[in-house]
């Protein structure tokens, strides 16, 4: 990296401001004003609409050698979702997924 010290600090400062701006945006500006029912209905689906898509490219990334997604990761994702559905608890889901990933990676 050949960036100057001042450029590095500029990037950190602007990223911090920009990220805070995105996080504060609606919560800060709309505040307590009521939202229409159709918008509330849309917003209820925010986590299930964003997080799976955010992770999909990494989960389904094709291995250059095999041409297939990583079976250990796919197995771990299935275990994570299944235990999350079953126990209704994110922590158990995460532990099940991590354990499955470790086991399948070790077996490979």
């Amino acid at each position, binding site marked *: 990296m050949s960036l100057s010290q001042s450029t590095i*600090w500029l990037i950190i400062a602007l990223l911090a401001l920009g990220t805070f701006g*995105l996080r*504060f945006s609606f*919560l800060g500006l709309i505040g307590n004003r009521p939202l229409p029912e159709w918008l509330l209905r849309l917003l209820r689906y*925010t986590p299930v*609409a*964003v997080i799976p898509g955010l*992770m999909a490219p990494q989960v389904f990334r094709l291995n250059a050698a095999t041409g297939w997604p990583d079976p250990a990761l796919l197995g771990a994702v299935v275990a994570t979702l299944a235990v*999350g559905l079953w126990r209704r608890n994110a922590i158990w889901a*995460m532990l099940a997924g991590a354990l499955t990933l470790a086991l399948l990676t070790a077996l490979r």
Partner: protein
Amino acid sequence: MIQPDPTPPRRAFWQGLRDGGPFILIVGPFGLVFGVVATEAGLNVVQTMAFSIAVIAGAAQLAAIQLMVDDAPTLIVLVTALAVNLRMAMYSASLVPHLGAAPLWQRALIAYLMVDQAYATSFLRYERDPGLSLQAKVAYYFGVITLVAPVWYLGTLAGALLGEAIPASIPIGAAVPIAFLALIGPMLRTLAQVAAVLVSVLGTLALGFMPYNTGLLVAALAAMATGAAVEVWTARHRPQVRA
């Protein structure tokens, strides 16, 4: 009828701590990786810490460092990393009905601490307990983040200080989807939510050609619309399923 939830804020805080605390198992190592990557890229310890404390967004930080190593133009670094964080604006909007009435300073603090795990864990709780008071909702959120944020800072610090003493390939990268998708299983209760997940995944994969992660945003908006449409359709055909 929704019954008022009698959960006092103090109890809500401890419940949040219990529900969110275990995420440090993944946040700590992830912070460690960022600390190692950032210092190996040439940032000093103070800059690395400033990054993690001021931005608190691991994926965006790693994207920025990668581009800085490649000597990308500053504007490209900023646009790319902020695009990774655009989803936070959607999180922010979806918290308005729950936390919009909180005092401004609390909303500012909630915004600063808005990481995926804290957001999704809190949102799930709010949807499950519609009668939760505003104070209890705020307390729960702060409970969820109380261990996660400091462990992110400390993980980064450990990585920055230990640097090359840490083996280069901690297999944390593969575990990141696990920490995110663990949040999704507990949310899937209705056909509408399942439909939203499918549109989100297929849409993002299909729109992978779009620049700066914008495919994710388009897919997410389509997924939200799908969820809402399926909800309306289900309610019309089976009015008794929505409590």
